[in-house]
């Protein structure tokens, strides 16, 4: 999909140049053009989804499609800033559309009220990147499998209370460029010998270096075998957030929803139980995840959505613009500690 850049209009309008000035100065015009030719699907307009929507719309993608089957509740108004307080009962994607569009009239924003599970494969294939929030593990695995083989960039992310993660699958061969300073030959001072008589190379000049990165599927990332000797040895350096993610995804699969503050007591108990089951099934120690996390993973915390949504949004921008090294392949954020780590999980 990215290869279709050649078809886009070469001229950046005055309006775009003025509005995007401060970001063009950061990532360059080529990157901005690639963004301007990209279409993105965003599933889930909860707290995290709204942040990602804002970030991508402001970045200036060609189109952003919002897909969410949920209805607006009182909780949703507290969780995100795109849904008007008067929109209770409406579809969340459609209720978010107006404010999302206002963020940047130059982006084509669309909204659909359907369940992602009900969408045919074709639907997903019309995009350059797909971003899944609030989705079940099965759906994410399916969509990832479908899309990444077609060179469609796949991202997943969620926020659970103080915790959040994002995952990316940019395919087996993701090409990008990095800007490096041009190596200047010695003689930089102003009062050197004969060299100084030649025209000066600006020490700030840079050059673009081409690189490639390879990503595994979500399925592979989640199905790491912890029984191997190598895996066991690496456990010490492994963020426990990875295991927490398994627990929360399982909760979502089993209950069809996330932990709810309204049912704090039972959900807490269930979480502890699922924790035990998951750790056992992964053949890792039950001590890895203490009980502590339980009361901190309810609801989507706005500042945590902002952090995870910021990182996730920037990863989408990087992937679409094919500029700068992507994080590979998970980012975990712990809002209680202020820790944000990037780590790779997959077949070694």
């Amino acid at each position, binding site marked *: 999909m990215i290869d279709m850049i050649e078809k886009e209009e070469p001229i950046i309008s005055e309006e775009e140049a003025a509005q995007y000035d401060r970001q063009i*100065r950061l990532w360059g015009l080529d990157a901005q053009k690639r963004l301007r030719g990209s279409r993105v699907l965003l599933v889930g307009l909860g707290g995290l989804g709204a942040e990602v929507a804002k970030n991508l719309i402001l970045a200036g993608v060609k189109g952003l499609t919002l897909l969410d089957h949920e209805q607006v509740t009182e909780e949703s108004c507290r969780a995100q800033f795109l849904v008007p307080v008067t929109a209770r009962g409406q579809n969340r994607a459609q209720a978010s559309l107006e404010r999302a569009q206002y963020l940047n009239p130059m982006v084509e924003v669309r909204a659909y009220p359907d369940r992602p599970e009900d969408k045919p494969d074709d639907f997903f294939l019309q995009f350059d990147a797909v971003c899944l929030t609030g989705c079940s593990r099965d759906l994410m695995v399916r969509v990832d499998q479908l899309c990444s083989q077609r060179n469609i960039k796949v991202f997943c992310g969620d926020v659970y209370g103080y915790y959040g993660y994002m995952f990316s699958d940019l395919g087996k061969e993701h090409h990008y460029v990095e800007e490096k300073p041009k190596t200047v030959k010695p003689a930089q001072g102003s*009062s050197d010998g004969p060299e*100084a008589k030649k025209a000066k190379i600006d020490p*700030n000049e840079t050059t673009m270096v081409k690189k490639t990165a390879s990503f595994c599927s979500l399925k592979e990332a989640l199905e790491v075998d912890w029984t191997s000797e190598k895996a066991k040895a690496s456990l010490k350096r492994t963020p426990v957030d990875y295991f927490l993610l398994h627990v929360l995804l399982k909760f979502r699969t089993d209950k069809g929803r996330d932990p709810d503050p309204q049912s704090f*007591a039972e959900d807490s108990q269930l979480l502890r139980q699922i924790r035990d089951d998951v750790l056992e099934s992964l053949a890792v120690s039950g001590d890895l995840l203490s009980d502590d996390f339980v009361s901190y993973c309810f609801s989507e915390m706005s500042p945590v959505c902002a952090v995870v949504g910021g990182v996730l949004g*920037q990863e989408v921008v990087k992937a679409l613009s094919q500029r*700068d090294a992507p994080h590979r392949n998970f980012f975990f954020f712990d809002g209680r500690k*202020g820790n944000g780590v990037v780590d790779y999980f997959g077949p070694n």
Partner: protein
Amino acid sequence: MVQLVGSLRKELADSLSSCRVLVVGAGGIGCELLKNLVLTGFKNIEVIDLDTIDVSNLNRQFLFQKKHVGKSKAQVAKESALQFCPTANITAYHDSIMNPDYNVEFFRNFMLVMNALDNRAARNHVNRMCLAADIPLIESGTAGYLGQVTVIKKGLTECYECQPKPSQKTFPGCTIRNTPSEPIHCIVWAKYLFNWLCSRGHCVLYLCGSQLFGEEDADQEVSPDTADPEAAWNPEEAAARATASEKDGDIKRVSTKEWARSTGYDSIKLFNKLFKDDIMYLLTMDKLWKKRKAPLPLDWQQLENHARPQEDSPGSGLKDQQVLGIWGYCKLFQHSVETLRSQLEQKGDGAELVWDKDDPPAMDFVTAAANLRMHIFSMNMKSRFDIKSMAGNIIPAIATTNAVIAGLIVLEGLKILSGELESCRSIFLNKCPNLRKKLLVPCVLDPPSANCYVCASKPEVTVKLNVHKSMVVFLQDKILKERFGMVAPDVQIEDGKGTILISSEEGETEANNSKFLSDFGIRNGSRLQADDFLQDYTLLINVLHTEDLEKDVEFEVVGDAPDKAPPPPSNQEETNSITNGNKDSAQPSTSSKEMKTDGCFMWRQRKKKSVQENPCTRPSVVLFLPKTDLCTGPNI
């Protein structure tokens, strides 16, 4: 049994809805922060910003839309935030936080203050107000992909000023005027040229040290520096030149401006003077060119004869990113001078223009003049786009970095309100994960520095200067205000009589301004007590007299590391030195008048390592002189 309201414990949620918080700044970080505060459940928020909305803000300051351009940021931010939380109680102030209305009592109203600023002066000021009011302060900043958050609490942590921050990079006068070697030198020169031509400037000249200065913009001299020590073959000659310049040189300088006016700002005459005659003059200072490539003067007529029609490449780039040929910049110079002249004419007698990067003829002028000079000194010319970045001290900015930092600010805020100060951290956002896989790096907060000249119990400093050559107004403006961050200083001499040297009351001590410190009996070992009552700040200054300062250096604070500017943070993964603001950034400031800045972030300390040295830097603090009238200034 734990009770939750959303993600939060009930006690915390309750205290959020009752406490009052202050957000200083409604720009990139401010918009994101307001949104997070409101969604998290804060109910009583006050936000202050002196700025209005510009179209270049819209890529990240998402509470604003195109229709809001020109309006007050604080006001529109409030209105937009109320849209998604109508029950929030938000007060907006379109004002400067340094306004004395916002005194210690004002700050005491809040449980928490959060900065979302882009310049050091305001940060210093809010730092002191929060210390005085003993209110926790969350500091933050961003630039490009990088960002930082930290917490400041009196007595518990370092204050904002505990660690010395690199000061604004400046260039020695002779580099700007005689021997530029980098594009930035030419850009600085071009901006000075603009001020020189378009605003009140030099008329009466003062001798100070070995250099002659004009009134007001003494540091913005553009014509060849005949007193350049490098130019002289021997000391006697240097002295002779210095004396000669008193007669020829200064008359020349006065004439430059008067002359420009008298020729009616004739662009071609101006061109030939600046880019031919002055360059030829420089060439006579042949010692300068022994080891450097000599500049090549330009001749308008010759260039016109050789001009080839510019190939119009519609290209796929921004028009601004094109680099024209030399004739293209000649024409641009001519055109912009003509436009500026008519702007001045329209404004009438005594008209002045202030340089503004967003004013097209002003930007065109600097683009053209800088490029012409770069060409003369054998540097590759640059596009208007690139020159604007340097001349305008633009720091690139995106929504996502601000979103992350604003999220972290609220998380620290929650810790503070929960009474968990010991769990607060400084958190750094990197572009790439570090060796320990961290993209976000939390660090334990440092305790206050015992010698901090702001938060120590009895702050004291020693300042090295020449009491016979430093004027009172210089002490006030360059030392107390600029260096020590006071807004309205009062100074007494500890001479047993409590002689008042400077009063913050307008007019009271104006007569002292152009007197020298020694005129008041100040000498080596004297002590001055400087107060800023608004900031509730007293600083004792020990005077160390010296006749022996480096060229272009007018004072030194003893104990400071020598000024070294860190290398400009380019696209690298992690940097040890992040600068403090557009005005103070590694990109040297090219104007002391420019108030608008564009995003900045804070000083990063990693195990108290000192700043990486840039061997080419020499500080150039220039003597500031009082404004005096055209013909009535003191003669020396």
